């Protein structure tokens, strides 16, 4: 993402932050997307927020086995490692509660 795209996206963050939701389905990724190598293996789920909105979110900070309908809270995190000279991409991730 360019810094302009990051900027445009960041405006949406406050609406998505600190919202409750539930996990619809998830998968553990062992072959990562570029930029996610350092977080591998990582889990991404399809989440439904209390607002009705559905979106894919990385799931973080969990110990126990995940289940369908697991309750989550949206939190802010770095999405992936930024390029050394690039703008940092912050985004929403899902934290089981």
């Amino acid at each position, binding site marked *: 993402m360019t810094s302009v795209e990051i900027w445009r996206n960041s405006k949406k963050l406050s609406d998505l932050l600190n919202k409750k939701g539930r996990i619809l389905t998830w998968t553990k990724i062992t*072959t990562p997307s570029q930029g996610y190598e350092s977080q591998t293996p990582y889990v991404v789920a399809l989440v439904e927020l209390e607002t009705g909105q559905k979106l894919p979110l990385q799931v973080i900070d969990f110990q126990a086995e995940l289940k369908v309908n697991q309750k989550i809270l949206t939190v802010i995190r770095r999405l992936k490692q930024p390029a050394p000279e690039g703008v940092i991409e912050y985004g929403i991730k899902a934290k089981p509660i």
Partner: protein
Amino acid sequence: MRVNILGVGITKFGELWEKSLADLALEAGSKALKEANLKPDQIDAVIVANMLYSKSGQDHLGALVAESLGINKASSHIEAACASGGVAIHQAINSLLSGLYQNVLVVGVEKMTDLSPSQATSALMGAASEEERQSGLTFPALYALMAKAHMDKFGTKRSQLAAVSVKNHANACLNPNAQFHFEVTPEKVLSSTMVADPLTLLDCSPISDGAAAVVLSNTPSDIFISGSAVASDSVGLSQRKSLVEIQATREASKQAFKQSGVGISDIDVLEVHDCFTIAEIMALEDLGVCPKGEGGKFVDSGKANLGGKLPTNTSGGLKGCGHPVGATGVKQLIEIYDQLRGSAIGRQVKDAKVGLTHNVGGTGATVAVHVIQR
């Protein structure tokens, strides 16, 4: 409708280090022209199907391929992710039915091995939505989400997913152009490296180079396309009505059946989009071959095998034959054509008269379905 197939041409699929995109397009295109007994100046339009070549810095593919084949008339490039081939055929059909053109050459071509594996994997995510890319999802992960939902809802088992891979690898062994010429056992599929659970490496189609070309015409020939439809759905999985079916498949096949006047029970041979094993299972359900939720059982019971009730992916599918993205939709058409004219040596479906191709873009955002008859 009746759009005639005059000639086809295809390259080997695989890691073709020594061939450039232009080389591949030329090889397939000139074979198709030769078989159609047409000279370049008799081609009114060439449509190139390709998804990823822009990443190498080259756009303007219509002109590039036209140049290599010596074609001076209309040229263009179609991109619809992995459905580029099917959609390009659909556009060619449209232009032929309009009467504006007599002969149209469709060339599907992809050159993926110039990119590193992680570059190629990331590039493929161009078929997904921005929020899917931002969440760290990969294509295998997207289909893994659908697989999980399917397994949760219908009890589909990993062994049934594996059965798709086993079958398609076995079929590929009989296809000289296929990327892979080795069989796999169910155990091998289940125990191969996990990519995104529950999908392992052997549940996933490979990265491939290759080209496939077809000359479509208003000049009559024995084998013709009788139905051609494209349908669309949301780019992202999150916005779909269901995770366990691809609605665009239902929509496109409904239209194609309507146009051709045949139904699923008339189909003798099938090429579906098995980018991942779960995709073939869902395709069989969504095309109406079996009820929703029973696709796993259908494949596992051997009904989709070469000698079975409805031979599916005799080419080896995307899994066994390879998946040079832009070429796949055209390759599927060529496989059905070969089956209908009796030239699918070693893997011939006896007396095949009606065939169907099913080509999907992304996780189901675009689906192109064609019915071919003789």
